[in-house]
């Protein structure tokens, strides 16, 4: 998340720290997604089981 990712140039120095919010937001969507991906990979393995 480089410096160009925040909204403003004028108040760059005063910009609040959004790291915690970023972590929570990304975990919110990533964790269910990883659960789904894990289940999908388990299913996909059936193609190679004889």
């Amino acid at each position, binding site marked *: 998340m480089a410096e160009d*990712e*925040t909204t403003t*140039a004028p108040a760059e120095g005063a910009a609040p720290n959004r790291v915690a919010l970023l972590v929570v*937001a990304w975990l*919110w*969507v990533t964790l269910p997604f990883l*659960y789904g991906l894990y289940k999908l990979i388990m299913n996909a393995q*059936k*193609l190679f089981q004889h």
Partner: protein
Amino acid sequence: MELLERSRTIAKPGWSRWLVPPAALAIHLSIGQAYAWSVFKPPLEKTLHISGTGSALPFQLAIVMLGLSAAFGGTLVERKGPRWAMFVSLVAFCSGLLISSLGVALSQYWIVVLGYGFVGGIGLGIGYISPVSTLIKWFPDRPGMATGIAIMGFGGGALIASPWSSQMLTSFGVTTSGISKAFLIHGIAYAVFMALGVALIRVPRPDWRPAGWTPDANAPKKLVTTANVSARNAVKTPQFWLLWIVLCFNVTAGIGILEKAAPMIVDFFKNTSTPVATTAAVGFTALLSLANMLGRFVWSSLSDRVGRKNIYRFYLGAGALLYLLLLTAGNSSTQLFVIAAMAILSFYGGGFATIPAYLRDLFGTFQVGAIHGRLLTAWSVAGVLGPLIVNAIADAGKSAGHTGSSLYTTSFYIMIALLVIGFVANELIRPVSAKFHEPATDEQPAAENGSESAESTVKN
């Protein structure tokens, strides 16, 4: 309700643009549940005594409503803003699930059709287009990647919902009470999950740009305009209809395989030394879902580097060649068949995810969400066309006594022809005539900054 207005969602200084993709994903991962509707079909058929056609009705109506609400609600979504749209999507989609819960509890199937199909379908359409133009405005330097993340979420939604819903039905039991409870919990859980998107979404200030990026930076290499075209004018341009053909035929080619994946691989290898069992075919379907989802992110992100026109040349051209490969050598190797089908499905997903960025390139950011909504009617047509071609030809072949891969030969030739037509349509796309451009205003900084007409600023 004022909190939902566009004016209340303008990002304050310090807001990270990387908070916008999770907001979009919270919506798309939820509404993507629609692709997992098949989990509910057998339990509904058993408990409410309905046919397979009947149990498909809520899903079919939901997809029709998706197309209609995206097409007709697009302009409203642009005007009211993404938070309003996400909230409407949350209310409609989750209400649809709650109404379905009531319908099953009362053993009134028409209530399920009305709830999930009609009300929930509106949530799908508004939710699908809700983050698109906002993401493009936050990521003008990487629009393909940004929309790719969100639209990958729509594919990913089924990955989450499918095992989750199955587990819930197993736990609660396949009874009207059990199914009703499952719908109820879905409605509540998705409302909580989607609320993050409503709360997090922000639009950038009109004059905001990523540091070090200027609107003209990409123009010398790509088909990118700095002007803006309204949704009403966009549908009058040949570019819109050429893109409509491109999307429709690219989707038709992918959905033809996706919809019939499991029986197709079983049929293909039926008369060979390496037959594929029905249980193994489930794995094939899962791999196609994975390819569909990854294609949305990978190819769409790549389009930021190679250009939108080039990536569609790849989707359509390579797609046609892969179908040819399936025709000539399809049942000689299971691995070859699986890899070729996965590649075709990755182009299918990529086609969906790249289209908003292509629209942005051609029509600007002004009403790109509304234009995208209108273009999604191509999806509705393809959703009928693809399965119709493959199923009708395979059924006719079976009636005539054919078996094995020959059941799909004619379908695959048709898919190649459609992809070639799509390829030609893509080749015919040129910059939009300046007569369709909006006059420059303070609300349209891109147009304001562009001093030349599209014809003079764009290159392919």
